[in-house]
């Protein structure tokens, strides 16, 4: 018997499709919700049923807890998967689900709340014995400032307590500018977040962003599935993720894993969660916990042979978590974003021709299709390309191969950037940090000569066709080679 009768997927795009796939494999019906812009989206078409929940702007639909919940009740769902983003880390929404008798496939509201407040989260982490970046756990005041900075050690970072996503952060290299920077940070924090608390911590140089995947059940079992290395990011947007992380020793991995599980236990966690750490020079420091499935979860799945969405559904239904096996090989994920590869501008438009990569070790998680209109309403991620190889070298080569196979026409994508990352010495060495994208070399243009020729040939052929040149007019799909030859010969004979 299926664990649930019907799951409402409170999300869109690739993650909605991802959840539908697993639910279908588990014999559970699914209900997709959709905004006006998403009527034709793949999750809507692949789900058992679909409910329209409002306008194209997120606030009118996917962020509207009431409409989403009404749809779940109306369509007879007994569980709800929030995906990531939107309502996934909204404690009040999780509570509302429970009130209406719907199992929220995420952690308990209290755990969401505890980890949602970054200052509170740090306090809990500290109590659970999880290493933090050296610094003050509380709001600093001017009198204590200089002593605190000296104790933590320069360079130090001033951070708005209510901030997030890198906003309101100042780095101070010595005592000289400290007081002025502090006053400005306060004023800025007040202005931006209406909350002038600022805290101080050591500025970690050349940090790597390494996170641990945890999974907990309602019986008190907490396990982890190793780490993911996510340092290839631009403005806190990850572009390439991999597992395992080249910097970790088995001993370090075990320590980080244990820390992550300790934190999950400390907040009574249930379900899938990710504990993010900064890693530098053999030390790791707690950053924050994401209380939901992470975009980059597939790299973990490929190495551990686990289906994390399946585990979410299982523990949500009260089953015990499956013990992780031994990971195998190496996995890399590249995000496919609709953005211009040099300017990083979002690229809107309609997806035309589409060639998807395949073959050994290649997985594509995407709700893309030919004809999909990329609209400005949602984030620009079209999907994720994931590869698995026996070792890191093979995984890199495989991803390069898959990137060369993939063709998307109609919007520009970030794929060429990912390819440049993978081709670069820094990534290949395994020794990189969150600054890698800033240091990325411009396109090498190996094939620029061929591209120039190809562009000219394409233009020549299209003008020949427009001009109705008979040599080209009958070139069809198949025996073009033969036909071109034949037609050309006829034409020459006639002269």
């Amino acid at each position, binding site marked *: 018997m299926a664990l649930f009768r019907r799951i409402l997927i409170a999300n869109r795009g690739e993650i909605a499709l991802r959840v539908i796939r697993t639910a279908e494999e588990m014999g559970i019906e699914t209900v997709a919700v959709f905004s006006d812009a998403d009527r034709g989206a793949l999750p809507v078409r692949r789900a058992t049923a679909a409910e329209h929940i409002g306008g194209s702007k997120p606030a009118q639909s996917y962020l509207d807890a009431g409409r989403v919940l009404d749809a779940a009740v109306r369509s007879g769902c007994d569980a709800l998967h929030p995906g990531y983003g939107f309502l996934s880390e909204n404690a009040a929404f999780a509570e509302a689900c429970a009130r209406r008798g719907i199992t929220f496939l995420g952690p308990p509201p209290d755990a969401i709340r505890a980890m949602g407040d970054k200052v509170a989260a740090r306090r809990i982490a500290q109590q659970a014995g999880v290493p933090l970046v050296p610094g003050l756990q509380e709001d600093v005041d001017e009198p204590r400032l200089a002593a605190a900075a000296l104790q933590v050690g320069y360079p130090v970072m001033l951070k708005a307590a209510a901030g997030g996503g890198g906003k309101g952060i100042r780095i101070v290299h010595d005592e000289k500018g400290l007081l002025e920077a502090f006053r400005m940070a306060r004023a800025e924090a007040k202005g931006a977040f209406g909350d002038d608390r600022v805290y101080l911590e050591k500025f970690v140089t050349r940090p790597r962003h390494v996170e641990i995947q945890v999974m907990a059940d309602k019986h008190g079992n907490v396990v982890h599935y190793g780490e993911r290395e996510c340092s290839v990011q631009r403005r806190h947007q990850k572009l390439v993720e991999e597992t395992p992380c080249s910097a970790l020793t088995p001993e370090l991995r075990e320590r980080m894993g244990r820390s992550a599980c300790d934190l999950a236990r400390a907040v009574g966690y249930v379900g899938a969660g990710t504990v993010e750490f900064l890693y530098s020079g053999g030390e790791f420091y707690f950053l924050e916990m994401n209380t939901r499935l992470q975009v980059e979860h597939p790299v973990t799945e490929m190495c551990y042979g686990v289906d994390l969405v399946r585990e979410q559904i299982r523990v949500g239904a009260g089953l015990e978590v499956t013990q992780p096996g031994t990971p195998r090989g190496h996995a890399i994920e590249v995000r496919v974003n609709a953005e211009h590869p040099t300017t990083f501008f979002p690229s809107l438009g309609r997806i035309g021709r589409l060639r998807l990569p395949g073959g050994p070790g290649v997985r594509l998680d995407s709700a893309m299709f030919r004809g999909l209109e990329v609209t400005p309403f949602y984030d620009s991620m079209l999907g994720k390309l994931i590869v698995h190889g026996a070792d890191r070298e093979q995984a890199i080569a495989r991803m390069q191969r898959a990137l060369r196979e993939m063709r998307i026409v109609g919007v520009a994508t970030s794929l060429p950037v990912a390819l440049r990352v993978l081709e670069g010495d820094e990534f290949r060495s395994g020794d990189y940090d969150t600054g890698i994208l800033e240091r990325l070399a411009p396109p090498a243009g190996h094939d620029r*000569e061929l591209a120039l020729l190809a562009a000219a040939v394409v233009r020549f052929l299209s003008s020949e066709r427009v001009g109705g040149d008979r040599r080209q007019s009958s070139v069809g799909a198949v025996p073009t080679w033969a036909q071109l030859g034949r037609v050309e010969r006829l034409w020459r004979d006639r002269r």
Partner: protein
Amino acid sequence: MKYLARIGEDEREYSFAWRDGKLIATCGDRECVVDVARIGDGEAISLLVDGQSVDVVADVDGEDVVVLLRGERYEAKVENDRERAAHAVAGARHGGKRELRAAMPGVVVAVQVAVGDEVAEGQTLIVLEAMKMQNPLCAEAPGKVTRIIVEAGAAVAAGALLVELE
């Protein structure tokens, strides 16, 4: 008919002729034999350039040709003789007038120049918010702002004229 192809700083001039069903491409004193096959209904074009396989997916919009090749994306401009002549004339007539247009639909969050300003290459003229990101739109070359069409807060469509320079 000659074709001038440009990608960034690089440009090449080609001429083409059919010989025994193959395309002979000439560029300066170099010549290569290109076997051409069109795949499906414009799905792709396969070139065998002196035997080397070049798998091209291209999007042609007038003189603008976007080429997808081996994981890279090239934005090329290809002009034929006629178009080059026409452009030369147009260029002379417009006296170097230039435009800044919206690369995507969005909302103007800031206009950072005024009419009459001298701007440097790469200087931000307009900040456009689209897909929850703020995107600086910069001057492609040094110049003088002659007209500003939009103001902060305006919603603009892709391709909308924002600023004129000369």
